[in-house]
Structures are given as structure tokens and as C-alpha cells.
């Protein structure tokens, strides 16, 4: 055992301090790291006997489970996780054995700097996929877009040319109808939640809003199929309702949060002037929270304009330009899906163009929301 006196590091200081005893021999951190990297659980033994025993036991237990239950599917994933844990354990164990105070401090400082660089690297590397996706879509899509593209329907299969007019118009109509349904219900529901926060109905209703927000989009599509398509047939209306169900939670939550942030004195001032409740809400409270509610609405539109799954069995698609809402209607995301998976190159080209338009739409809506929130300084 090596006894070390911390106080002796200072110049001209008598050592009347208690000494700290470091257990065990010193291990090289680099060696521990490499050994664990190569040999996994067995490599941990170098740095720490106890750690090595624990990791080997875990490994054997895993192997036993896999053999007994035949879960060889997950063998590789578990092995990777166990390996990583071994490396971390070995690193920590070796680090704990550095004796010299100065070296130790220097090591920890370097470790901190290394960690920071690692974090920065990971955080920013994530921007790469996004940039690549955006660039590609823009590159491929921009070539497709011209006036003809926007005003004509797709050409028959195998033929070149055509455009996305039916999908463009379809998306606008479907989303428009969804908004008409979802916005009033959403805002009113949000008002109720913010005005009556303690009631049972508010609790359960809020719970349902959370549930609705988490329902997979395909399930919503199935439900509307049973409720509306089965009795009435495929139609744009059914698609709108499905999308409306997905819009509502977002509108409700943002309305509720915006209104909760308003000062209560506002409502009190209006009420004390003798204004009836419904006017207070509709003419005072809602206009004050207008910006927040508007951003919530725009965000929800941006979200559903790109949703495909709910439309798969409701609005279907339509090769012709149509404004008939009780018949199937094409939409941008649905068209992208159909054409992306088709074997014809011409249709792929159309899909790139459609993706570009859709992407620009979504980006614009998001930027618009950002501007509103920044100008009116709201929390969403």
C-alpha cells in the first residue's frame, strides 16, 4: 500500500493532516481500456478483480438465457451492450488507481476536455443526415417543378410528363376540411381545460388528449375506415376527419398552455365590468392568446400535411383532379408513397417533385410559426 499525503503538494507546508490511503497497485488506464476492448469481460480483470468477476458472471448468465430460450436473435445486441459496460468498468477501475495527485488532476482535466469534444462531435454529427436529406430532395425536386408540373395531373403509367395538380389541390382541400373540424373543437376544448383545471372531466379529458396524441397514425386510419368508409365509401371527407383527430391534441394542448399563461387579472378585470362569461372568453381571453393559439394551429397543420397513413384507407388516391369531397382524393404524401414504391422512373420523378413541394410547405409553416412565437414572445 502506498501512503500519500495530499498536503505535501503545497510549498513549505507542514504535514499535520490525516493521510489518505489508496488501495491497490496503480494500473494504466490505456491498458485497461484496450484489454477490455479486445477481451471484453475477461479484460476487466486487469483493472479490477471484483469487476472482472461480476462482468464474467453477467456474460455467462446471458449466454445461459440465450441457450435455454433460444433467443439467439438478440445475442448480438446484448453482447455489444455487455462489451461496452466492460470497457467503462475497466476504465473507471483503472482511473481510480492513479496515485500521484498532480497526474490524477491532469488526467481528470484531460478527461473533461475529451468528453466535451466527444459530446460536441455527437451533437453536431446529427445535422449531417438532415442536410443530406434536404439537399437531395431539393436537388432532385427543383428540377421537376415548373408551371406544367403544378397544373397538370400525372400522365398514365409509363408515359413521361404530367404533374401533381391533383395531389396539390387534394392536399389543400383535405387539410382545409380537417382544420375546419379540428380548430373549433380544439380551441374550445383547450379553453375548457384551461378554465376548469381541477375538475374530473378536465382530468380525464386531458388524459384522453394525451392518449390521442400517442395513437399511431395507422390506427386512426383503421378507425375512420370503420366509422365512415364502411358506411359511406372512400372519400376525402373521411380522410379529413382522420387527420382532424390527429390535429386536435396539438391544438388543444397549445391553446390550453397559452391560456394558462395569461394573467388571471385579465379575466377578472373583464368580469368585473359586467361582461358575460362567454364574451369574456371569446372577446378578451382568446384574442389575447391569439398568437399562441395560432402557432399551435399552424404547427398542427404542418404536422398533418405530411401524414400518409391515415389517408391510406380513407381518402385513397385519385389520378384525376377532383374537388368532389365525397369521393376519393389524392394528396401529396399519398402520391409520394404510391409513386416511390412504383417501378416507373417517371413516377419517381413526380415523387421527387412532390416531395420538394411538400418539404417547402412544411418548412415555410415552421418558419412562420417561429416568427410568430419570437415576435410575440410566447412559450409553446
Amino acid at each position, binding site marked *: 500500500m502506498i501512503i500519500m499525503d*495530499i*498536503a505535501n*503538494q*503545497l*510549498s*513549505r*507546508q507542514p504535514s499535520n*493532516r*490525516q493521510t*489518505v*490511503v*489508496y*488501495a*491497490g497497485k496503480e494500473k494504466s488506464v490505456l491498458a485497461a481500456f484496450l484489454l477490455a476492448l479486445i477481451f471484453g469481460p475477461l479484460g476487466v480483470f486487469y483493472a479490477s478483480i471484483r469487476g472482472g468477476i461480476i462482468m464474467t458472471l453477467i456474460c455467462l448468465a446471458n449466454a445461459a438465457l440465450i441457450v435455454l430460450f433460444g433467443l439467439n436473435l438478440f445475442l448480438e445486441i446484448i453482447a455489444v451492450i455487455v462489451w461496452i459496460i466492460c470497457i467503462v468498468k475497466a476504465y*473507471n477501475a483503472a*482511473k*481510480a*488507481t492513479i496515485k500521484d*495527485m*498532480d497526474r*490524477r*488532476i*491532469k488526467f*481528470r*482535466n484531460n478527461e473533461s476536455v475529451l468528453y466535451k469534444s466527444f459530446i460536441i462531435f455527437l451533437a453536431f454529427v446529427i445535422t449531417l443526415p438532415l442536410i443530406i436529406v434536404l439537399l437531395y430532395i431539393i436537388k432532385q425536386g427543383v428540377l421537376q417543378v415548373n408551371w406544367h408540373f403544378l397544373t397538370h395531373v400525372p400522365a398514365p403509367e409509363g408515359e413521361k410528363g404530367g404533374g401533381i395538380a391533383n395531389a396539390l389541390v387534394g392536399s389543400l382541400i383535405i387539410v382545409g376540411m380537417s382544420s375546419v373540424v379540428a380548430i373549433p373543437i380544439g380551441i374550445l376544448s383547450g379553453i375548457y381545460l384551461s378554465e376548469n383545471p381541477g375538475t374530473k372531466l378536465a382530468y380525464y379529458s386531458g388524459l384522453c388528449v394525451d392518449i390521442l396524441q400517442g395513437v399511431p397514425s395507422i390506427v386512426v386510419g383503421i378507425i375512420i375506415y370503420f366509422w365512415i368508409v364502411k358506411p359511406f365509401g372512400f372519400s376525402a371527407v373521411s380522410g379529413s376527419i382522420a387527420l382532424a383527430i390527429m390535429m386536435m391534441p396539438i391544438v388543444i394542448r397549445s391553446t390550453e398552455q397559452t391560456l394558462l399563461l395569461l394573467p388571471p387579472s385579465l379575466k377578472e378585470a373583464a368580469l368585473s365590468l359586467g361582461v358575460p362569461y362567454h364574451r369574456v372568453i371569446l372577446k378578451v381571453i382568446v384574442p389575447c392568446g391569439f398568437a399562441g393559439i395560432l402557432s399551435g394551429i399552424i404547427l398542427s397543420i404542418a404536422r398533418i400535411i405530411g401524414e400518409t397513413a391515415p389517408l391510406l384507407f380513407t381518402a385513397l388516391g385519385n389520378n384525376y383532379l377532383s374537388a368532389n369531397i365525397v369521393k376519393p382524393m389524392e394528396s401529396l404524401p399519398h402520391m409520394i408513397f404510391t409513386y416511390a414504391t412504383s417501378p416507373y422512373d417517371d413516377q419517381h420523378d413526380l415523387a421527387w417533385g412532390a416531395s420538394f413541394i411538400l418539404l417547402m410547405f412544411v418548412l415555410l409553416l415552421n418558419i412562420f410559426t417561429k416568427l410568430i412565437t419570437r415576435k410575440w414572445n410566447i412559450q409553446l
Partner: protein
Amino acid sequence: MEHTVVSASKFNAWFGDNHVVKDVSIKIEKNQVIAVMGPSGCGKTTFLRCINRMHELIPGATAKGSLKLYDDDVYTMNPIYVRYKIGMVFQRPNPFPNLSIYDNVVAGYKLNGLKMDKADMDNIVQKSLTSAALWNEVKDSLHKKGTFLSGGQQQRLCIARAIAMEPEVILFDEPTSALDPISTSSVEQLFHELKTNYTLIIVTHNMQQAARVSDKTAFFYVGELVEFDDTKQMFTAPKDVRTQNYITGRFS
């Protein structure tokens, strides 16, 4: 012959362009309790935080001048090392909520990834908690989390945590301002016992406290060290008119 533990010479500190500590020079001697007082915004807390180099953690904070621990300039040493030698107790007790009392006391060692024999750790825990006058109250619940402790007990736990690192100096930033009177007096009692082994520098808003516990007092005003003298002297016959005005309550 007393040894000078902490000395500052023409020390300055800024927050961005805001000159908060101006040309402070002071010599603090070993095993004494020094009170630092002054009105709000006079730079006393900033100066305190420069001593253990906590000041520079705030973005835009800078400092210049000489600040020494014994004969070593604090700003040339590694800050981690400085903080080993100069401990700090904060205004609101801040024990780590996810650690037990035992782990809180040795937190300084655990944070540095040190591995110690259990016997040594037990020893340190007992010694520190005893010096902080908390041992008898917690010795049967060492491995419970400290959430059941009162404010005064939590503060003494933080003191024990600082003591466990065996510093030379312990800095206190208004240590009792968040405590009730009984806890306050138990902590003040501690100051008296601690000074045999450590040097204490206590920033306080409470003049009576300064008068009660300290050997010497420093009076800061608008960033300058106006007066530094024996406590008895300063409170009965201050040399500077500003000190006089502060003590008599003309401004606070």
C-alpha cells in the same frame, strides 16, 4: 508568530465590464475567523468566490491581481487543487439529494473517482461529522438520504463535506441567512470550534453575527476594502466614516 494563510494584493474582479472588486489588498492569518461584511452589491461575495476560483465559472467573469494561498498564487495553481485546499459552504444548504449522508460527506473523494479502503472512509466520515457537531445526531442513519435533516443539520452536513477534504481554509457565503435562529446558533457555535484547525472566512449580512463570531472583520463598500481590523476595535471605534455609517445603520 502567525502565518499568513490568504493574502490579496491589488486584486480586481469584473463581471463583463462591471468592475465589482477594486484593488483589494488584505492579509488573513491562520486559525482565525474573519467576517466580511458590507451592503448588498459591495463585492464581498464576489471576492470570496475568487479565493477558491468559483468566480470564473460564470461566463464573462474575469479577475486580475495577486491572490495567494500561503506563497502560491491561486491563479497559477490548478483550480481543482485550489478547491481541495479551500473549501466552501453556501448560503442555502446544498447536500446532494441522491446520495446518503455517508456518501455526502465523502462526496469530495467520490467525485474525484478515488477508491479508498472502507476503514479509511468510515474514519473520515466520523471525524468530519464530529467536527461539524453532527455525528451524534446521524450516526445511526448514515446510509439514509439526508432529506429528513433540518436546515441547520443540512448546513452542518455541508460543513462536514467541506471538512472531509481537509482544507486549509473554509469559505462561508452567508451560511446562516437561510436558517432559523436555533440552527443559526448551532452553526455559529461550530465556527468557534473549527478555528483551531482551519481558517474561516465568513461573508455575512448580519452585523451582530460578525460581532459574535469573528476575530477580525473586513468591511467592503462599493467594491473596495474600506477597513480591516480586529472585530472589537471595528465595532467600537471604526477608523473610516463609511464603516461608522454602516455599523450605526445609516445605510444597509
